[in-house]
Structures are given as structure tokens and as C-alpha cells.
């Protein structure tokens, strides 16, 4: 598997970023929704600490991914109408924004509540804002609503990928799949024609 992206598929590194972060973000989101309903206990405290550590990992991975994205090549876009390519870009823009906004609002929520922030019980990170109960509940709400907004954006993202795969029958999804192989030897050139 190539380390760098080529004309027919995304690189191993890009795929690893994509699928690792997808798993961590979705897993962490539903994990949080479930644990939030638990009775107060030490176990719950440790689960929250785990949730925070995973969120910080996502934030760190995002910045590494950004650097990698700037360094790596990109396979050309599959042929699609202009509005679809614009839509795809908007969706990707929102995804990137949310990948950053979710951990940061969580961090701010944690800080405003006055909780410590410890990374996998190894070291502590500073507070983003001062302790403030009113602000804490605002950040808490925003943090949760952003997750539901992320789900909405993901429906578009996954919907688009499936549409390419099942209806257009092109390589858009295949070239990002962990062990995917391009169907065609020659990639489609970008164009406005459907």
C-alpha cells in the first residue's frame, strides 16, 4: 500500500487518519451520550476522563492530518456536476470545522465547570477559560448540539460516498476504503459534465 496518495487512491496514511478519526469521533460521541445518563460514581468519573482523553487525541490527530494533507498529493476528483463538487467541499469544510470545534467546546465546558483535564492519567492540560457555572452549561449544550450537527453532516458525507459507489459506480468510496482497489486503471479527469 502506498504511503503517499496517487492518482487512483488515497495513501495508507490518509486512510489511517480518515478511518481512525471516524471511529474515535463516532465512538466517543455515542459513548458520551450513554455514560451521561449513568448514576454518579467513580466509574463514571473515569469514563468521562477517558472521553476527554479520546477527544484530545482527535484534536491532536486533526492537526497532524492537516499537515499531512498539505504535504500529500490528492487523487483527482471523480467526474461530477459542479454543484456536487461544491456540496462535497462544503461538507468536508463542516467536517473539519466540527472535528476541531467538538474537542474545543468540550475542553471549554470542562474548564468552565472547574474540572481538571488529565490526558490518559499521564499529564494535565491547562484550563481554556476560568470557572464559570453559567458559561459551563452553555458550552455543555453547544458541545452536545455540535455532535448532533456532526451526525447531520455525516449523513451527507456518507450519503455522497454511497451515491458515488452505488449509483455512479465510480471509485470515490473505493479509493478511501482500507483495502480498496480502484476499479479502473485510468482515473477520471475532473470535469463539469456528469
Amino acid at each position, binding site marked *: 500500500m502506498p504511503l503517499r496518495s496517487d492518482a487512483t487512491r488515497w495513501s495508507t496514511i490518509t486512510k489511517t487518519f480518515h478511518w481512525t478519526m471516524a471511529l474515535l469521533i463516532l465512538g466517543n460521541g455515542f459513548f458520551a451520550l450513554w455514560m451521561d445518563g449513568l448514576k*454518579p*460514581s*467513580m*466509574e463514571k*468519573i*473515569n469514563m468521562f*476522563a477517558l472521553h476527554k482523553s479520546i477527544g484530545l487525541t482527535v484534536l491532536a490527530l486533526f492537526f497532524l492530518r492537516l499537515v499531512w494533507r498539505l504535504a500529500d498529493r490528492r487523487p483527482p476528483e471523480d467526474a461530477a456536476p459542479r454543484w456536487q463538487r461544491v456540496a462535497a467541499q462544503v461538507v468536508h469544510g463542516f467536517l473539519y470545522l466540527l472535528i476541531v470545534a467538538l474537542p474545543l467546546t468540550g475542553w471549554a465546558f470542562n474548564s468552565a465547570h*472547574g*474540572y*481538571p*483535564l*488529565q490526558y490518559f*492519567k499521564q*499529564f*494535565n492540560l491547562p484550563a481554556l477559560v476560568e470557572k464559570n457555572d453559567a458559561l459551563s452549561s452553555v458550552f455543555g449544550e453547544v458541545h452536545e448540539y455540535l455532535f448532533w450537527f456532526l451526525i447531520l453532516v455525516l449523513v451527507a458525507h456518507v450519503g455522497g460516498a454511497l451515491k458515488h459507489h452505488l449509483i455512479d459506480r465510480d471509485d470515490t468510496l473505493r479509493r478511501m476504503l482500507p483495502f480498496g482497489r480502484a476499479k479502473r486503471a485510468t482515473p477520471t479527469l475532473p470535469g463539469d459534465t456528469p
Partner: protein
Amino acid sequence: MNPTIRRLSALALALALPFAASAADYKVGPGSTLGFSGKFQGQQFDGSFGKFDAAISYDPANLATAKFDVTVDVATAKTGDNDRDNALPGSDFFDAAKYRQAHYVTTGFSKDAKGNVIANGNLTLHGVTKPVQLKVVFNPNAGGARLSVTGTLNRLDFGVGSGEYKDTSTIANEVLVNGSLNLLPK
């Protein structure tokens, strides 16, 4: 030294001499604090007890007769976090319904290698009695004295934090205790 101060000093000495052989007795005045510091998820938190009382007998020149007798209402612990403050008096921690008061009584005083005064005593907390040492700093002042004490104890020695709350990777075992008492003559 000007003559007035010298005369006053002589007077003060003359007044103090008859009591020099025995420790002075003090009660706790306003402006006194009794607190503790723990560590939760790697971060220190500071708490204090709203209600406590102490009978202090102390003369730096005659430590043999010194004595601290301190009672603390553990239900009055406040740490600046509602969740924690609600949990502390509960059965998982202080169990204040059963063990409302903590009690510290000294058994003797000594000096460490650096010349600090160390109070040796027994702390009864959460129904468990264990020895606890406190470093003592005593500064007489116009109205009485300022007594500062610091020490450390292990919360698990006293069973503070039961069941899953024994986990010291989240709540550190070591707790610092500190007191700053404004002592008034009895």
C-alpha cells in the same frame, strides 16, 4: 531601643515571668482557618472546614506541657465544587451521618533535624484513629498568637473513600492538612 520600649519590655517580661513555667492556654479566635488539599485527576483542590474548635496549650519554651485538642465538624467541608461538596459528607467518604466529628489530640511534641517543632498526635477520622504529625509554627502577637500547622495523611488509612473511591489513580491517597489559628488567651 528607646527608653519607652525598654521600660515596656521590662514590664512585659515581669508580667510574663510568673507564667513562664506552664504553657499558656488559648482558644480559637476569628480569622482562623482549618483546611486540606487533595489531588483529583492530577490537579490539586483546596478545601476548608466551616466549623471546628480547638483548645491549645502552648509555650515554645516548655513543649512538655503543650497540648492541642481539636474537634472538626467534617460535614462542613467545602472545596469549591458542588459535586465534590455533596459527595464528601456522604457514606463513600466522611460518612458524616455516622462520624460527624474528627478529633485530634496531641500526645507529645518534639523537634526535627531542622529544628522545627513537630506535634505528635492521634487523629480520629471516620471512626479510625491513627497517628498524625503536624509541623508547628507559633508566633506570639499582641492579642495572643498565630499558630500554623501543616501535615500530611493518607486518606485510605482512615477509610475515606470506600469501594471504587479507593482508586488512588484518580483521587490521590495523600492529603495535606493545614491550619492557621488566631489564638486568643483563654
